[in-house]
């Protein structure tokens, strides 16, 4: 899969009388390549342009500029060929026929994706089992829970054994055990030669699965590489975490100003706030951070290796 400088603009409608058409640049020239059999992750904050990029690659949107080829087929000129070989799973509970059973949904889509009639029954049976819906497949979808719907989506996306699979937040709403099974399934598909493009907001998921990752923000790639490269390239030093009881916000600027500190973020942890400090390689910031927080009531203090999440936070917060 080769993507070259792909762009997409939307016309955002605001107001009814003054049809002020504001152009939104959702994707501003992305370029990346995904090898066959590779699992490529697309990470980025909400509205970064991940879904838009995927929709252009599966031919649901025409790019406003640039070009892309999937399995050697141009996504604009050879849309039919592309559609034959790609599968698409998106997160959320839409995209299913509520009044039909799960089984009927799969039958219908098997026909739409041109699964040969002889294979349909067996293939659907396999997939129902794979996603763990056996026993419930004859019930109407309107009675499914959110995770069950998501599982049905996954089965639907795999019906025609796509060579390239696009997974747009596939694990939304799935319970931890199901999510782990999903990761195993995806890993197995990749072993069998399927190329996968995955977006997710779960960093551990991306870390565990992806061979390579591109982080995009506001429609542009801000970093690209293996999870290891991203972690090392962005956050070379160690990460210091300090639990603060009380108002950590007031002293954050002091911490940010410390020599060697590259970024600081705060997470709510019950009554405490967890101040996460990332620093340059070789900088030993623990003592100066503690000094800066001196006036506060502190809890646990820990240092650890940077995770993909640290790298991600660092990348998308860069000015």
């Amino acid at each position, binding site marked *: 899969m080769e993507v070259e400088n792909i762009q997409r603009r*939307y*016309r955002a409608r605001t107001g009814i009388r003054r049809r002020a058409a504001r152009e939104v640049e959702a994707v501003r020239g992305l370029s990346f390549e995904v090898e066959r059999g590779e699992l490529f992750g697309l990470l980025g904050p909400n509205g970064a342009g991940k*879904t838009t990029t995927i*929709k252009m690659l*599966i*031919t*649901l*949107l*025409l790019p406003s500029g640039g070009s892309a080829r999937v399995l050697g087929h141009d996504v604009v000129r050879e849309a*039919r060929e592309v*559609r*034959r070989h790609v599968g*698409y799973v998106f997160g*959320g509970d*839409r*995209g*299913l*026929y*509520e*009044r*039909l059973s799960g089984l*009927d949904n799969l*039958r*219908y*889509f098997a*026909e*739409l*994706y*041109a699964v040969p*009639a002889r294979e349909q029954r067996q293939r659907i049976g396999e997939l129902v089992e794979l996603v763990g819906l056996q026993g419930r497949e004859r019930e109407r979808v309107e009675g499914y829970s959110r995770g069950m719907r998501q599982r049905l989506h996954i089965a*639907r996306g795999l019906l025609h054994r796509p060579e390239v699979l696009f997974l747009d937040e596939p694990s939304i709403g799935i319970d931890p055990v199901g999510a782990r099974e999903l990761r195993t399934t995806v890993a197995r598909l990749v072993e069998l030669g399927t190329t996968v493009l995955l977006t997710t907001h779960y960093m551990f998921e991306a870390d565990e699965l992806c061979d390579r990752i591109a982080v995009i923000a506001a429609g542009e790639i801000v970093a690209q590489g293996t999870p290891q490269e991203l972690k090392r390239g962005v956050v070379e030093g160690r990460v210091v975490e300090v639990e603060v009881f009380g108002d950590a916000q007031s002293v954050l600027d002091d911490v940010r100003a410390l020599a060697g500190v590259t970024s600081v973020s705060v997470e709510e942890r019950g009554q405490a706030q967890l101040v996460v400090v990332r620093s340059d390689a070789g900088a030993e910031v623990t003592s100066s951070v503690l000094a800066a927080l001196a006036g506060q009531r502190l809890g646990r203090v820990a240092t650890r290796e940077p995770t993909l999440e640290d790298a991600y936070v660092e990348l998308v917060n860069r000015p």
Partner: protein
Amino acid sequence: MSVLRLLGLGWWLQLKMRSRSAFDGALAIVYPLFFATSVFLIYRQSASSTALVAAAVGASVMGVWSAVATTASTSLQNERRQGTLELLVGAPRPFALIVVPITLSMATIGLYSLVATLVWGRLVFGIEVSFVHPLTFALACVVTALGVAVMGFVLAVSAVRYRSAWALGSALELPIWLTCGFLVPLSILPDWVRPVSWLVPVTWGVSAIKAAALGGQPWPGIAMCLGVAAGYALLGTLLARRMVDSARTHATLALT
């Protein structure tokens, strides 16, 4: 073969979905009977028995058309709301082959209303339609329903690009009643209307049904209905391609 499978399964599942909504179901039963009753009451005053039979037939086809006209153009809007429109467009099968079974299933429900109208006329108003050619009559009804389905198809694909196209079906519902000779004979309409009505498949379908019921030549009507419908099918297919491309440009396939 595989095209037939696609059409067949699509039709069957769509029919299943539509017949599962209690509200739609009740509406599909009651609505056409209201037309029929009004028409029978009006015609009972004056007319000969042939005119009454013609009215019964006309009213029954009105039911088929209304069932399709009002739902065809909203059907793809519903798919859009459900988030399935993207999946239909993104599938490797031609989009037209996916939409046709949707309107076919509506026309099938319309056929029910055709039968119900005739039965109602018979039971409540004592209108005996003694078919001159019963088999040809049945065939003409099916062909007419097919013609209506294809008209619905053209309406439906317009909604892929234009979200407000759902209004088109409702806007066309009454003009088609009037111009296609459902109730009033074409001969009493202004001259310029007649060529327009020839361009609509149901005009021919209705004339074939009337001929089969009352005696006359049904076959030319059946052939013309199929021919004009084929033209619409072609038009709809070309239109579908344009509408899908335009929707991909303007990002109107999904509203997420």
